[in-house]
């Protein structure tokens, strides 16, 4: 009764969870474009897309991807053999246990007329499958907790997944062990199946089971004489053998039985097998109910992601289907961290302690964003910064074992966050090169805005630069600022500048404008001079910094060996540092 009720509750949570989660695929919007498509259109387009795919040649691609990437998981294999073994053990072992053992009533009994969980090969196979899963869990634990890989982040979600699985497996294993040694279990079997009344013959059977089957009896203990065992064997052959193989075949359970033999009687009297049975099936129900939520849901979403990405294409697929796929991909992520371990920008994390740099953690933040969670300005800017600190090298997308198109995901989220109006200073770096290449994919009016906003935000903290009359105060120079400029050990060379203007004369950016000062603010030689005078605002507030090509013409040709380009680099670093943490009111646009 309790068994069924608890099962149906878990099943109901599972079912509702499944519906809820699948609905988010059509409701969540990632990126600017997705916002304009209603969920109903997305559902309709998805069905249409799936149907059209099934009746096209693409169906062969689906079949190939299903066998190679979903079943055989070649994408994991390509990454790491150990992880492939780990995942294959867990998922193959678990699927087989599910089909043969958990659903025995519906599958095994139907398929095999002589199915009985206590006879071979089923008894052996159950433990074999169990052993696979346990091996897989052991590798997972080893990888996550013992092998300390830098930047491999393990979070609560990973713990839950491992814990639930481990409880299911261990409780099952111990349950089997306690049942093997259980005397009450033995008695119940005798009652049901042994057609014997004779005391002596029953004792002989018991002796045989104690000796050969590991049962721990309170009265009958070895050593036994040959004759008793022989008699016991005869009865066994008639009454028991037909549906009970020797427990040694259940090698895991038998191993456990041997370990607990000294305390077997106590365990049996305390009815521990029943307790373990409750733990076992309740853990299974918890696993079932938990399935649609968090990490375990990848069982459904990851194959879909692999299949969808195999037949979809940014240029040709319907934008609403791409929006749906991107929402689904968030659920497909297993937090395996392959992306992070391969990330070209992962190393930036050492000096920018922002978890959102790491792709596997970015996904978690994007999940929160997509779910419409209220995030503070600080959190949003943190996410934007993390997404911007990406070289768009596409490695994450290439290596993702579940085929998520991460690069497109970053692109869309980046654009929608940029649109939200927070200044992102990292846009003023070659990290924007890719965004420039993709400018035709950005709404035309939105493209330039973030770049202007970042420049304005920096200018906003440099008062002096904004003074129209350019009357400079005679206040003492900013010593702190001056001494700060020696990171690259050559940048403090500005002090020997004698103002010959060679740097400005050879600068191709200066040469590009008829009236360069109007566009660029201070010119290179003026910036060097400002540094010498310690005029922080002038040096940092000039547009010239961000328009510098870093072509090193100025530095190469300086007769005084001033490292002009290095100074400009350092001023850029300094400018970013000054404004990065500032709240929006101080650096935002004054309307």
């Amino acid at each position, binding site marked *: 009764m309790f068994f069924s009720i608890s099962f149906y509750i878990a099943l109901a949570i599972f079912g509702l969870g499944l519906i809820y989660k699948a609905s988010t695929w059509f409701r969540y919007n990632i990126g600017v474009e997705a916002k304009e498509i209603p969920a109903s259109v997305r559902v309709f387009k998805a069905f249409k897309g799936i149907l059209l795919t099934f009746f096209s040649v693409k169906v062969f691609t689906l079949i190939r991807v299903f066998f190679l990437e979903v079943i055989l998981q070649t994408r994991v294999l390509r990454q790491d053999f150990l992880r492939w073994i780990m995942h294959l053990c867990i998922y193959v072992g678990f699927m087989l246990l599910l089909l043969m053992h958990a659903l025995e009533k519906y599958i095994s009994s139907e398929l095999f007329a002589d199915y009985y969980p206590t006879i071979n090969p089923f008894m052996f196979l159950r433990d074999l499958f169990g052993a696979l899963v346990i091996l897989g869990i052991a590798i997972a634990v080893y990888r996550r907790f013992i092998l300390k890989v*830098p930047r491999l982040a393990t979070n609560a979600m990973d713990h839950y997944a491992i814990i639930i699985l481990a409880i299911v497996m261990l409780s099952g294993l111990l349950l089997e062990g306690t049942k093997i040694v259980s005397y009450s279990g033995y008695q119940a079997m005798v009652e049901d199946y042994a057609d014997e009344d004779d005391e002596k013959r029953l004792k002989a059977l018991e002796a045989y089971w104690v000796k050969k089957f590991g049962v721990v009896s309170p009265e009958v203990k070895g050593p036994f004489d040959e004759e008793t065992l022989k008699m016991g064997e005869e009865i066994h052959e008639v009454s028991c053998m037909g549906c009970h193989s020797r427990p040694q075949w259940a090698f895991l359970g038998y191993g456990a039985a041997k370990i607990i033999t000294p305390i077997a009687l106590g365990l049996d009297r305390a009815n521990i097998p029943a307790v373990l049975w409750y733990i076992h099936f309740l853990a299974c129900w918890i696993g079932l109910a938990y399935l649609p939520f968090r990490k375990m849901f990848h069982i459904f979403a990851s194959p879909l992601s692999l299949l969808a990405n195999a037949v979809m294409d940014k240029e040709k697929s319907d934008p609403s289907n791409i929006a749906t796929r991107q929402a689904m991909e968030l659920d497909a992520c297993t937090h395996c961290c392959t992306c992070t371990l*391969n*990330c*070209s*920008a*992962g*190393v*930036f994390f*050492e*000096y*920018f302690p922002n978890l959102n740099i790491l792709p596997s953690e970015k996904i978690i933040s994007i999940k929160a964003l997509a779910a419409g969670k209220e995030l503070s300005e600080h959190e949003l800017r943190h996410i934007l910064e993390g997404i911007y*600190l990406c*070289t*768009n*090298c*596409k*490695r994450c997308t*290439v290596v993702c074992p579940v085929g998520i198109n991460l*690069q497109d995901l970053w692109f869309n989220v980046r654009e929608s966050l940029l649109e939200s109006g927070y200044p992102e*200073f*990292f*846009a*003023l*770096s*070659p*990290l*924007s*090169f*890719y*965004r*420039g*290449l993709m*400018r*035709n994919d950005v709404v035309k009016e939105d493209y330039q805005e973030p*770049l202007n906003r970042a420049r304005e935000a920096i200018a906003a903290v440099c008062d002096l630069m904004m003074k129209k009359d350019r009357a400079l105060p005679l206040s003492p120079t900013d010593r702190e600022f001056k001494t700060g400029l020696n*990171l*690259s*050990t050559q940048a403090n060379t500005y002090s020997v500048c004698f103002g010959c203007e060679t740097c400005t004369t050879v600068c*191709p*950016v200066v040469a*590009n404008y008829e009236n360069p000062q109007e566009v660029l603010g201070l010119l290179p030689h003026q910036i060097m001079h400002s540094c010498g005078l310690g005029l922080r605002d002038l040096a940092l507030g000039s547009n010239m910094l*961000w*328009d*510098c*090509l*870093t*072509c*090193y*013409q100025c*530095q*190469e040709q300086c007769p005084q060996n001033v*490292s002009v*380009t290095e100074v400009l*680099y*350092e001023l*850029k*670093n300094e400018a*970013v540092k000054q404004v990065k943490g500032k709240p929006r009111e101080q650096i935002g646009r004054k309307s």
Partner: protein
Amino acid sequence: MKFALFLGCNIPARLTLYESSARAVLGKLGVGLVDIKEFNCCGYPVRNLDFRTFLLSSARNLALAAKENLNVITLCKCCFGSLKKVDHLLKKDDSLRKEINSILHREGLKYDGEIEVKHLLSVLYHEVGIEAIKEKIERTFEGLKIATHYGCHVLRPSQIVQFDDPVAPSIFDQLVEVTGAQSIYWERKLECCGAPVWGINDNLSMDLTEKKLMDAKKSGAHYLCTACPYCQMQFDTVQKMILSTRGTNHHLSSLLYPQLLGLCMGMDGESLGLTMHQLPVGIIEDYFIIPKIAQT
């Protein structure tokens, strides 16, 4: 001769033809390449933002190569410049080296300053040598005029990168002339392609690119030749955008050096990625000298 191949971020994602053509050419010349999967960004894109991140990024790559005891060959000039710069700084500055090594140590890595960084062109010129290249050439161009674009970060700061004479470089021109093509003189040869500010100030970037294109075309070039993914994408992808947004018409295609050399080594255009450009390359094979036997 064996090197660790440093591809950087752009080539695998957006310019695979550079990788495949460089591999093909280097393979034929007997240069062994080792891939180090753990390589990360060289740090160039974050140099505007944070000096230490820039340092660490390059230093980690150098340490990874040191672990394999291999010198590094780069295809990208910005990666080259970054790795060289960081190598120079860390060699000179003990306290910086210590700080960086304390971070690298956590992964069992160490920067020790023993690794040399070379660009594809310097490997071809200095290590392989013009004569050895000539031996592998099966056919040569005639009447083909090439404008070599050196790229800033390979030339300057010259004291650090030590690639060639920064005022009158000749390595690239000599390498081009091996193919029988003529390396023409053009005024803006040593200037920036515009890529460093693409995405930051597109108008400025396009101005600079356009000026270079006009100059090269005016000087009679049939093609530009580059050996850097940023320059190449600027002259290909960005030029295409310039053509469509500014309506100007000085279309001048750009080739990567290993494509040019590969053609002369007898490789076919498609395998060298000539069909993968954004702007049509045209039929460069027309410039090949027709072998005497075929003429008769």
